[in-house]
């Protein structure tokens, strides 16, 4: 006796269903509500007044910073779209199927740690940068708001191109051909055929990029040239670092930060949720073709464009001195412990994030339609909260149970996993919320068991998303530094994480060696990023006969 609704019914009465349904509010409370309240409580307890929060909220300097945060993020999104959308559309016209390597290359920048981004940026637009020396980067723009916007824009353009490309692929070919047959020009095609399909994808990707840029810290601080170019994140950092711990002020900034980063997101969410089309948003179908050839139909220009988007901005990282210093690093006794610890943190935090997202998706699916938007907003909240605040908050809230400063990586892993949830959720939700029911039924009608149905119908849909997003998270996780520097202290007897090796080398004048550690970190990140692909291959082979 089967129902035709998605497999999870909001009215399901079992205990398991009730537990799942209650998961998202519990999760939201634990990982966000409690930490924020912990900081608030600390603020009242010690600084005794809510005026501190209001003062920060109404401080004209802070409001200016909030305004700049917003502007800079919008500008970055605009630039990322300006580069990424035409590229994605152009590539999409030329490819019947998106090869895996294209996805990997275009995704690569998303996993880049900020440490590397500065170095890579300076190669192009530093004082001695390639573009500066060619006169293509004006001196007035060195270390200015422009530099920030350009770096953000270029960094994220590749992701925008990828999402555009994949969404373009999902537009049924017949529709495009029909339009072309009717004599539609490119712009008419874009307006009438592509726009409805791509619109939601662009809104969501734009939001994602916006949030990343609004929360940006190191890039803005260094490349922006100092105040008034700064984001709310800098304002928060300055309240929680050298001067006394200004919790009320930090809370005020966090509230503003939430408003800036999530405000537009929530509006979008409520508007577009009902119209989401999973096909346009999944990372594309991989149609297994008999052709073994990897050479896509996009030809050399396409290949060059892909490399230009995904790899060209980062060539500055591969410096000769850095490569040279890799030698001694590779012979250092600290090498393998460092790799193990960093890889371990990345793997565990990614797995924990995936677990949370899985539970959240189940929980959201069990909510009634009306409550789903709210539930999804909760899942997306961590992307709008400062790492420092969340870290402090978790510590204040939970340190009665444990000491995060003991030589204990568990909390770094927890914090990192929470921060990764919105990214994963965003990638998996469209797939989960619109399962291919018809195909599932067809498979069942043919006699397939639940597992066989999954393998034949759902796995091919999920595989690219799993490979892509888990790969990106793994790579980004190896470069994690914010959570580490805050929540973990010890003599790293188990191995010094790679990002800490970088900062240690830097603080001891060993700049070339620091770059060497950065290269190693990237190398480890790339290897980890390929791991989901390898495992997916194993799953593929395991199912076939």
């Amino acid at each position, binding site marked *: 006796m089967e129902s035709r609704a998605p497999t999870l019914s909001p009215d399901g009465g079992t205990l398991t269903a009730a537990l799942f349904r209650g998961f998202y509010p519990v999760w939201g409370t634990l990982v966000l509500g409690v930490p924020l309240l912990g900081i608030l409580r*600390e603020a009242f307890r*010690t600084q005794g007044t809510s005026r501190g929060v209001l003062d920060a909220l109404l401080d004209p*300097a802070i409001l*200016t910073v909030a305004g700049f945060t917003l502007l800079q993020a919008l500008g970055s999104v605009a630039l990322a779209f300006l580069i990424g959308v035409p590229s994605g559309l152009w590539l999409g016209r030329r490819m019947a199927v998106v090869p895996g390597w294209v996805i990997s290359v275009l995704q690569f920048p998303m996993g880049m740690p900020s440490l590397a981004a500065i170095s890579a940026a*300076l190669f192009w637009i*530093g*004082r*001695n940068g390639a573009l500066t020396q060619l006169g293509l980067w004006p*001196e007035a723009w*060195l*270390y200015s708001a422009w530099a920030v916007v350009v770096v953000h824009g270029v960094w994220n353009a590749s992701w925008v191109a990828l999402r555009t490309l994949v969404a373009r692929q999902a537009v049924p070919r017949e529709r495009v051909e029909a339009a072309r047959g009717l004599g539609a020009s490119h712009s008419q095609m874009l307006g009438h055929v592509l726009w409805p399909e791509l619109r939601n994808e662009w809104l969501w990707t734009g939001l994602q990029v916006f949030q990343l840029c609004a929360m940006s810290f*190191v890039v803005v*601080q*260094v490349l*922006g*040239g100092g*105040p*008034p170019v700064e984001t709310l994140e*800098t304002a928060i*950092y*300055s309240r929680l*670092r*050298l*001067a*006394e*711990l*200004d919790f009320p002020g930090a809370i005020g900034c966090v509230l503003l930060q939430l408003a800036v980063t999530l405000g537009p997101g929530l509006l979008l969410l409520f508007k577009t949720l009902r119209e989401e089309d999973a096909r346009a948003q999944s990372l594309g179908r991989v149609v297994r073709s008999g052709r073994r050839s990897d050479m896509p139909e996009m030809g050399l220009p396409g290949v060059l464009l892909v490399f230009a988007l995904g790899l060209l901005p980062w060539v500055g990282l591969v410096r000769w001195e850095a490569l040279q210093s890799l030698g001694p690093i590779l012979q250092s006794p600290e090498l393998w412990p460092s790799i*193990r*610890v960093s*890889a*371990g*943190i990345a*793997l*565990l935090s990614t797995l924990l994030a995936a677990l949370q997202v899985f539970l959240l998706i189940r929980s959201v699916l069990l909510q009634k339609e009306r409550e789903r938007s709210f539930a999804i907003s909760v899942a997306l909240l961590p992307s709008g909260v400062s790492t420092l605040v969340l870290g402090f908050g978790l*510590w204040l809230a939970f340190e009665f*149970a*444990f*000491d995060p*400063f*003991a*030589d*204990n*990586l*568990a909390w770094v*892993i927890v914090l990192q996993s929470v921060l990764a949830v919105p990214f994963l959720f965003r990638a998996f939700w469209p797939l989960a919320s619109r399962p291919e029911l018809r195909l599932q039924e067809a498979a069942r009608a043919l006699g397939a068991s639940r597992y066989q149905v999954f393998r034949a119908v759902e796995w091919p849909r999920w595989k690219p998303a799993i490979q892509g997003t888990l790969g990106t998270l793994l790579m980004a996780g190896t470069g994690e530094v914010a959570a580490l*520097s*805050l929540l973990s*202290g*010890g*003599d790293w*007897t*188990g191995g010094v994480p790679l990002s800490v090796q970088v*900062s*240690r080398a*830097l*603080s*001891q*004048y060993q*700049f070339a060696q*620091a770059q060497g550690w950065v290269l190693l970190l990237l190398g480890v990140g790339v290897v980890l990023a390929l791991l989901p692909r390898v495992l997916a291959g194993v799953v593929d082979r395991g199912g076939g006969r």
Partner: protein
Amino acid sequence: MDGGCGNEAESNPHMNFFTYLGILARSSISPVLVAAGLALVPPLALAKPVLVISTYDSLASKSGLGGKLFPLFEKTCNCTLKISAAGDAGTIASRLELEARRGKLRSQVILGFDELLWPRIKPHVDPFQPKGLEALLPEIRSGVTAIPEGFVPFDHGIHAFIQDTQLPLAAPRSLADLKDARFAKKLLLQDPRTSTPGLGFLFFTRERLGRDWPRYWSDISGQWLTLASGWDQAYGMFIKGEAPLVWSYTTSQAYHRLHGDPDSKARPARYHARVFEDAMPIQVEGAALVRGLQGEERRLAEQFLEFLISPEAQALIPEGNWMLPVRKGVALPPVFAELPKPRKWIHLRADAGELKEVLAQWNRALQR
């Protein structure tokens, strides 16, 4: 790994879930180590007494000062040192404050704060003065007014601009000089909100310019290339040639002399430390005993502080931490001896609450 397991047993006698997760994290990486670690738990619990020192990360690192200093102490004290490393000095202070509020102080010695951070540290430490303070340099002994309050200096650095002479530029001779057009976008400074040298520069301007300091900052806002988030960011950019002047310490010159930039008549060195004619700020780093220690813990902590200013420890400072020792009569390597010295040293101090106020004022000055 072994130390990690043992210390978990000490600070967390009950293996709660998260500790287990932490072990699991490591064990999933190396199962053998877990077995070894667990086997070691009982013996370590009965082993030598432990002294927990809270310090910043680069000092704690094996290739830094800590790599030589701590083993040296462990040899003499017959104890184990456990280092609790924070990201930087500010984080140390934050953790100390938060721990103190809960009455659960983890460490016995705080190491690596300076005079500007002292107001945050002071309420939580004991006004202990170790034996041997008479052997300190007189400028330090008299200049660091917090010594009677428990501030034990262990090294100091004289701030200076380091100049890359590959780019022709006359060195700045004073703060006012920096306003000159020839320095436009040629300076690399640090953000005082996130960097101690940066904070030092800010307080230096305040000290020298009195009430005019906010205007000074507005005036020089066109002069810096950027305000880096920390010393390492700034210096890294300096090395890459982004700007010819960076705010650092005179000892940076010593580093360069010993690493690829020797000075000779035939081939003059590229990097030089520049001090102002009249005065330069100095940063004194110190250590202190946490309040409320008793018995064996206290004895060990006191012993460590005395060790810090002993000749053996002080001799490690120059090439271990790239700072200057605070003790008289410590033989300096030649490249340290030839570092420029300002006519006058300025100690940068702040009262409780002053940091916050000054930074807020600074922010306002720059927003205009």
